[in-house]
């Protein structure tokens, strides 16, 4: 048994033990679904980032960078991370204010509609299952690379690594393990990158070498490698901006992000978490992307999605490599545990609504529901080929396409009615899935500006307008919307002033981003060109 495998197994055992310990503190469904609604900022930040950054970021995105698409992926990374601030202020805090257990329950309550609750639960289950499969496949790829075991054996180990504690502890365990896993992969990214850049001849030399790369020309220029996706730089940048916005919308409204806010102890925790999560995602992803580019300059002959795994095993001291691999694994496991809990919660809280008042029995039903959901995912993963990057895009974009505009308008629109919201979500979901499937099967070939997400969002907007015209908003819906703007007595203005002060860190961070990209990328690059 090699040292990397031992490190990975030890980390999995720690997550399991912590998760089971947290599960012992679960007393009722409130603890199980929303961790008692008393989580501080650090836990919400940890869970937001850990749920969002999966093996897709650590293996898929870095693979894209390695293959020559550095700046477009950086642009997507920066824009998507700012989605936390837009999302928390325009949607997330109002979801928390509604006092629900799940995001589908929010939509059902906001529009007085059981069918909207069920529709959002179904779209959650479908999209999150697709996303979860990609996380599982990422974990499996990693395990397979380390152990040499076959894919199917690794699927079962990957499945076991998060299902046991997630089923037992629900959100209480997921919140704590997510935060530990976030710290593991943040530390991994911070300590591993100096070794990777060192192998590339040092940071500045590494940039110089990449600037003159003959194997992947243009890899770190503003236009990226012109043989990778589009043959013009403008198209590459336009693609990046479009996908940055798409993923910012995912961050703003997706259930695996907004559901974290339901666990926050107050609304200031929601707002502060958004500030720190945004910075945390940017730091982690930008470090990784630079790392992947440096790996390219050292060894250009790797399978792109395995470049960071190779780096961990060949470009740094063994102990740092162990931390790096444990970090990549943590990113996958943390997302998978959140996804599983979301599927289970949507199933038992929103689809199979029970009149059971006994807390213990409700808890039991929730756990059985999650076990069933996890078995379905296991079966799907067992027979599915490993395709990390595109499957992940499918899951994320469907939710943003179907819910994105409806979610924001559920808080801010004066005209959106229940029927408008229902048609908007339905049209967005169906159009996005149909076009994405046809594109994947090569039945049609969509340009990036008419991506299935954009077509779905357009269909969603049309559905909202048509539905709201046919059946306008009722007085009850209006009253429910107004409730969202009633600030709870527990929220003090003094705390809000402190939150405002924390935005200074974010503005300073923006200046740091400019300085970092100027001095660590643009100027060294231009020196040599």
């Amino acid at each position: 048994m090699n040292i990397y495998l031992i490190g990975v197994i030890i980390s999995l055992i720690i997550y399991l033990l912590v998760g089971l310990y947290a599960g012992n503190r679960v007393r009722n469904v409130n603890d199980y679904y929303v961790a008692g609604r008393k989580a501080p900022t650090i836990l919400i930040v940890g869970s937001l980032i850990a749920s969002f950054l999966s093996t897709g970021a650590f293996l898929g995105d870095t693979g894209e960078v390695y293959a020559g698409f550095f700046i477009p992926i950086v642009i997507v990374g920066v824009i998507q991370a700012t989605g936390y601030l837009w999302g928390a202020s325009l949607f997330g805090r109002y979801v928390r204010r509604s006092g629900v257990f799940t995001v589908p329950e929010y939509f059902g309550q906001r529009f007085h509609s059981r069918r909207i609750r069920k529709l959002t639960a179904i779209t959650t289950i479908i999209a999150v299952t697709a996303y979860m499969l990609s996380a599982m496949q990422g974990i499996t790829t990693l395990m397979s690379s380390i152990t040499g075991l076959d894919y199917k054996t690794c699927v079962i180990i990957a499945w076991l690594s998060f299902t046991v504690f997630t089923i037992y502890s629900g959100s209480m365990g997921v919140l704590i393990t997510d935060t530990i896993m976030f710290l593991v992969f943040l530390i991994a990214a911070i300590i591993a990158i100096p070794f990777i850049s060192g192998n590339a001849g040092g940071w500045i030399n590494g940039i110089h070498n990449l600037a003159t790369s003959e194997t992947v020309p243009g890899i770190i220029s503003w236009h990226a490698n012109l043989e990778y996706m589009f043959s013009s730089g403008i198209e590459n940048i336009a693609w990046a901006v479009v996908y940055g916005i798409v993923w910012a919308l995912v961050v703003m409204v997706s259930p695996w992000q907004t559901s974290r806010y339901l666990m926050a102890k107050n609304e200031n925790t929601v707002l502060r978490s958004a500030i720190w999560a945004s910075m945390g995602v940017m730091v982690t992803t930008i470090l990784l992307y630079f790392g992947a580019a440096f790996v390219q300059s050292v060894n250009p002959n790797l399978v792109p999605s395995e470049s960071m795994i190779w780096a961990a095993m060949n470009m740094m001291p063994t102990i740092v490599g162990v931390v790096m691999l444990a970090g990549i694994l943590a990113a996958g496991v943390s997302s998978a545990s959140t996804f599983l809990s979301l599927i289970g919660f949507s199933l038992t809280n929103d689809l199979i609504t029970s009149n059971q008042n006994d807390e213990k029995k409700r808890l039991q039903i929730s756990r059985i529901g999650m076990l069933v959901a996890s078995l379905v995912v296991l079966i799907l993963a067992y027979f599915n080929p490993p395709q990390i990057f595109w499957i992940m895009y499918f899951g994320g974009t469907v939710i943003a396409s179907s819910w994105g505009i409806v979610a924001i308008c559920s808080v801010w629109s004066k005209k959106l009615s229940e029927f408008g919201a229902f048609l908007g979500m339905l049209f967005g979901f169906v159009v996005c899935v149909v076009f994405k499937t046809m594109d994947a099967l090569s039945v049609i070939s969509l340009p990036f500006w008419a991506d299935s997400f954009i077509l779905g969002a357009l269909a969603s907007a049309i559905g909202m307008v048509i539905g709201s015209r046919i059946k306008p908003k009722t007085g009850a819906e209006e009253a429910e919307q107004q409730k969202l703007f009633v600030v709870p007595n527990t929220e003090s203005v003094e705390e809000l002033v402190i939150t405002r002060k924390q935005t200074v860190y974010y503005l300073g961070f923006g200046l740091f981003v400019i300085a970092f990209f100027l001095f660590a990328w643009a100027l060294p690059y231009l020196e040599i060109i």
Partner: protein
Amino acid sequence: MEILVAVCLGGWVIFTGIFFRSFIQREINERKNSK
């Protein structure tokens, strides 16, 4: 062009931060005025 990209990346972060700060400021003002 690389310099422009670097400035735009950070500029977008700063713009988002300003929006967020003014959103919070507006709420602080509203709540102070309603007292």
